[in-house]
């Protein structure tokens, strides 16, 4: 970890990642595939974290997704050149993305290969923390991670109120993304055609991923039962469990607990706010 850095929750996983990134930066002897795998892990972790946020940062998500794509492409090219590849595509384990607090990171040492790096492989069997954090991830899973997060963003944006746009004039809107170079598009098509089933199963709302009952288990709803309850709708943000530290807020709880909302007497200012939205003033 660099210098004084940012204040962070101390969890084993995070400390591990900090050590790894320091190792990445300081060590010149780290073999390239290992470095690449490390970066890939970090990217996927971040994407997974963002997926759990109510509103992921689009700029960052795109940058990270591009990095993943780049690594993916590189690995794909390598695997197409050499039939047996150590660090790529061996998805013998079911995928487990390291959550922020999940203690178990799947361990998988690359087992023998014809790669020139095989010498390095055996030499780093002694470097405990680095090899223990290798995560075997398949292409499909990477692509699905990217697609699901971008899909999530699209889903969220589509339900927004229509923006007030005047007709944009004579020029028809360009159907293609003008910024994307044609040759890259073709490469990505290969990556994204695996999205098929993943798009459906990786639901566009994180609500479906979590057991709804679990969310409400720890929340004290006694305040909702009383008459005076306008404030708690927003105030009940204390995250009862570790995973919920990553969630910015519990808006889903508010919107799902419709019965609770009906019990509460909404604040006048909130009504005004709603009216403003409806009337569009």
């Amino acid at each position, binding site marked *: 970890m660099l210098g004084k850095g940012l204040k962070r929750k101390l969890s084993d996983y995070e400390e591990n990642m900090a050590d790894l990134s320091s190792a990445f930066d300081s060590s010149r002897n780290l073999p390239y595939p290992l470095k690449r795998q490390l970066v890939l892990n970090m990217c996927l972790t971040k994407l997974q974290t963002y997926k759990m946020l109510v509103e992921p940062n689009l700029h960052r998500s795109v940058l990270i997704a591009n990095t993943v794509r780049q690594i993916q492409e590189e690995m794909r090219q390598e695997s197409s050149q050499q039939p047996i590849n150590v660090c790529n595509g061996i998805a013998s384990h079911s995928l487990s993305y390291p959550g922020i607090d999940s203690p178990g990171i799947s361990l998988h040492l690359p087992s023998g290969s014809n790669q020139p790096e095989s010498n390095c492989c055996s030499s780093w069997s002694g470097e405990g923390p680095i090899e223990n954090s290798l995560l075997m991830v398949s292409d499909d899973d990477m692509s699905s991670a990217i697609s699901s997060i*971008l899909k999530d963003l699209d889903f969220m944006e589509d339900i927004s109120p229509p923006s007030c746009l005047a007709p944009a004039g004579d020029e028809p809107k360009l159907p293609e993304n*003008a910024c994307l170079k044609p040759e890259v598009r073709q490469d990505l098509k290969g990556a994204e055609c695996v999205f098929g089933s993943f798009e459906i199963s990786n639901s566009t709302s994180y609500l479906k991923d979590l057991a709804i009952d679990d969310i409400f288990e720890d929340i004290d709803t006694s305040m909702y039962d009383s008459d005076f309850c306008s404030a708690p709708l927003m105030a009940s943000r204390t995250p009862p469990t570790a995973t919920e530290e990553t969630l910015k807020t519990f808006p889903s709880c508010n919107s799902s607990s419709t019965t609770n909302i009906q019990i509460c007497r909404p604040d006048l200012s909130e009504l005004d706010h709603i009216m403003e939205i409806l009337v569009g003033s």
Partner: protein
Amino acid sequence: VGCPLGEEAVDWCLYQLNGAAQFEVSEADIISTVEFNHTGELLATGDKGGRVVIFQREPESKNEPYSQGEYNVYSTFQSHEPEFDYLKSLEIEEKINKIKWLPQQNAAHSLLSTNDKTIKLWKITERDKRPEGYNLKDEEGKLKDLSTVTSLQVPVLKPMDLMVEVTPRRIFANGHTYHVNSISVNSDCETYMSADDLRINLWHLAITDRSFNIVDIKPANMEDLTEVITASEFHPHHCNLFVYSSSKGSLRLCDMRASALCDKHSKLFEEPEDPSNRSFFSEIISSVSDVKFSHSGRYMLTRDYLTVKVWDLNMETKPIETYQVHDYLRSKLCSLYENDCIFDKFECAWNGSDSVIMTGAYNNFFRMFDRNTKRDVTLEASRESSKPRAILKPRRVCVGGKRRKDDISVDSLDFTKKILHTAWHPTENIIAIAATNNLYIFQDKVNSEMH
């Protein structure tokens, strides 16, 4: 006024410091934008709590030599409040992302302030006189008994204590689905644009229920998204030209005369990647965090994670100048990626004569590059190192090898102390530096002594 820029080395000294000491910081006080107005008389800051504070420079007076040119608080107001988007179950932050001043057209000042979603036009007026001597009301405003009124008088304007009134004149809402990252007032003084991650809208300052979409890079399929808009600005003189920067490090100059929808750029400014510097993080560090036209309109200044670059509008293939802000971080990119510092968005600024450029860095350092002499300097904005009126000592970061006294090693840098927002007075050597919740105003020593 001031020493000739670029001809002599400028000595900077702390002029004033506003803001609480570090241990009292609340997140809402963190300054999120700084902007001088067109004359430099006013300086506006926005913070994470949605407040705007405007400072006004005291006019010079021979009677009190030390309070000349001091920026005093002129007005404070709550610009944006946190909002809750009920449709998406999202909270919209009240943090002020950008403030832009409108050129002054009458006695009032106007500025635009924006958070992630809504842009507001504020009018700032002064009241230093009030009418006295009404016929029908008395001094407290109560109606007079008409039988006591025996003669008519003309109300007279009498001086009163200065009152600064700020009123919201326009609210430009619902124009953006994504987060607004920049706003820019057109030189025609009638329109302005606002840019979010994927779209740029053109507004008329007087019309709030309608905006024109002039750039849209949202792909039909979001999965195809690989690039977002990071900053945009109108050309200072040509009201039809604007530039926007992208997360891939490119700049697009667009001409609104060419078509209504400016998805096709007129010019694309892009530097091919240096293969020797290639890393996993190359794209991330190439993302442009800020773009500013020079005052002359001939050049553009861009900031990406490690460099600032000067581009000539006539040359699209590469920048004409590249300055390393903190190249020693190049070997730390993985750690900076891990702790998200690699996504920090630093701003950049030109001085009044376009001869010096400035940008912030970590550890409360900020850097200045003189384009003519090619000299650069690293200065620090911190209470410990800035005594009022004392000249700022240049700082140095050592990367191993010989270490001089007072050097800081790369590993000792504090990455939580970042100078993201800086502003330069439009004509004089006065700079405003935002360090977390503190606003530092530095002046050129010669400049301040001449008054």
